[in-house]
């Protein structure tokens, strides 16, 4: 049979975002793929060069719409390094807790969308229901459900509200119980197992060569996690394990994400324990509200971090829900960066598509791409 190119995207239920997967097929067999991105390119790196540090927070939210807090913190860690700003300890614990809630929300969102791609409808409804509980928590301390604008250079915008700890613990207990139900829905389903086991294999050697990170890499048996290997924030104080799987397939990625959710719940509980033991709303006073504003509003002078910005560079690396995210900031002594660069894990994971798609069938495409967990907002930036 003759080969032909098929465009899956930019509008296609499989894509979960705006991008185009060009697939060369021979009958049902995939012989070549060519992912095309850029449909969501908004020039965030260019705009960063024109905005003061704190003004970029809205863009970071929108660079990944399911993990906004991760990108906010990533950019500000790099900025804090470049500018030499200290973060209060309490703010670090709040950040860590927010990161893990974000990972939980992102993974549940992935679960809901992925299992629906495979034709199982009810897990999606359960997943969306439980993710909403996490979004409620976000709303209670950031004021928003998806675009939070919560992190600041040197800390976070505000402290946690009264009674937050109890509410968060209840939600964690609930989700921990429901994770068992999620797993039963999937693992007892022949359809789910038959469609995911042994599909989309990317072995550890290829993962390392192609730069693939995150759950895809850990599903191939490589226990690399920047939370442990290069601890940022207060992850060095946290007790958690790095789940791995040796399947290197779509099923392995599903297993890794399921275990990661349990570890996230553990870390959230540990952060809440620390925050309960160290009460006080001390953090907000120490966090500069305005970075580099030449004339602060009257009476707000103590909130301003306006001084000679040093020349410097900052490199921040974080384990985002999708993998290794890196921000690199070059500061030339201004209140905005000279060059800001964001490394998106999804960008790299998509770029390796040739390595995990060729040789499978057309009907496997949603299964494989879903297991990669794509979010095009951060790939295109």
């Amino acid at each position, binding site marked *: 049979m003759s080969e032909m*190119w098929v465009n899956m995207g930019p509008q296609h239920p499989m894509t979960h975002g705006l991008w185009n997967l*060009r697939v060369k097929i021979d009958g049902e067999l995939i012989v070549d793929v060519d992912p*095309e*991105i*850029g449909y969501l*390119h908004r*020039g965030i*790196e*260019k*705009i960063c060069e*024109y905005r003061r540090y704190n003004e970029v927070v809205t863009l970071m939210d929108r660079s990944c719409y399911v993990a906004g807090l991760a990108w906010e913190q990533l950019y500000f860690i790099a900025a804090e*390094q470049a500018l030499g700003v200290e973060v209060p300890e309490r703010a670090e614990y709040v950040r860590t807790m927010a990161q893990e809630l974000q990972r939980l929300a992102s993974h549940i969102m992935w679960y809901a969308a992925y299992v629906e791609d495979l034709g199982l409808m009810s897990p999606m409804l359960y997943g969306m229901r439980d993710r909403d509980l996490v979004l409620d928590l976000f709303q209670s301390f950031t004021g928003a459900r998806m675009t939070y604008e919560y992190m600041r250079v040197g800390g976070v915008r505000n402290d946690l509200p009264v009674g937050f700890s109890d509410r968060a613990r209840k939600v964690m207990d609930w989700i921990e119980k429901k994770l068992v139900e999620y797993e039963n829905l999937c693992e007892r389903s022949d359809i789910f197992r038959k469609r995911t086991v042994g599909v989309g294999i990317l072995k550890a050697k290829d993962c*390392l*060569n*192609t*730069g*693939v*990170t995150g759950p895809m890499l850990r599903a191939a048996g*490589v226990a*690399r996690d920047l939370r442990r*290997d*290069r601890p940022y924030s207060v992850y060095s104080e946290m007790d958690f394990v790095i789940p791995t799987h040796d399947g290197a397939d779509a099923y392995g990625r599903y297993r890794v994400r399921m275990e990661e959710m349990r570890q996230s719940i553990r870390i959230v509980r540990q952060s809440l324990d620390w925050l309960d033991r160290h009460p006080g709303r001390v953090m907000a006073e120490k966090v500069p509200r305005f970075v580099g504003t030449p004339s602060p509003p009257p009476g707000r002078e103590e909130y301003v971090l306006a001084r000679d910005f040093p020349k410097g*560079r*900052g*490199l*921040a*690396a974080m384990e985002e829900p999708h993998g*290794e995210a*890196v921000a*690199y900031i*070059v500061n030339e002594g201004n209140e905005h960066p*000279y*060059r800001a*660069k964001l*490394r998106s894990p999804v*960008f*790299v994971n998509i*770029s*390796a598509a040739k*390595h995990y798609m060729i040789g499978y069938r057309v009907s496997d495409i949603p299964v494989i791409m879903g297991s990669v967990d794509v979010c095009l907002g951060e790939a*295109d930036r």
Partner: protein
Amino acid sequence: MTAVSSWPEALARLKAEVPDAITGESARPGVLAVLAVPAPSIRRLATWLRDEGTFSHCSLVLGIDWIDHMEVVYHLWSDALKGYLELSVTLPAEDPHVDSLGGVWGGAIWHERETWDLLGIRFDGHPDPRRLLMPEGYKFHPLRKSFELREPEELEVKSRHV
């Protein structure tokens, strides 16, 4: 040969086994070291770092427009040393080009495509030298400092495929 177990050991072996591959070394918090690399020796150095220096993961390639010259920065991750190594290559402002590392780490291919697309730095021997984020046929490299922010414009976008 045993694998290196610390950065000073790696650096000593690097200087002995790949002579003249680096012209400067400096320190910065957050990275193992920053190495200044002359453009012609980047591929030789990268291959050594991958095979002998345990830097199995090419995390990031980016370009910086310094107006009078260009800079390409590479970030490599080592699972054994648990840290990032930063390589910096200085290129002339006129027709900047450097050897592609796409043959050393497959993960560098799209980063280099993006750097060509947004900054106009060519990567010699690149396996897939197309635009990535901007449309094919776009006149500018928008991350260059000579490109000012502007209002949205209508683009004549040619179809990428025939």
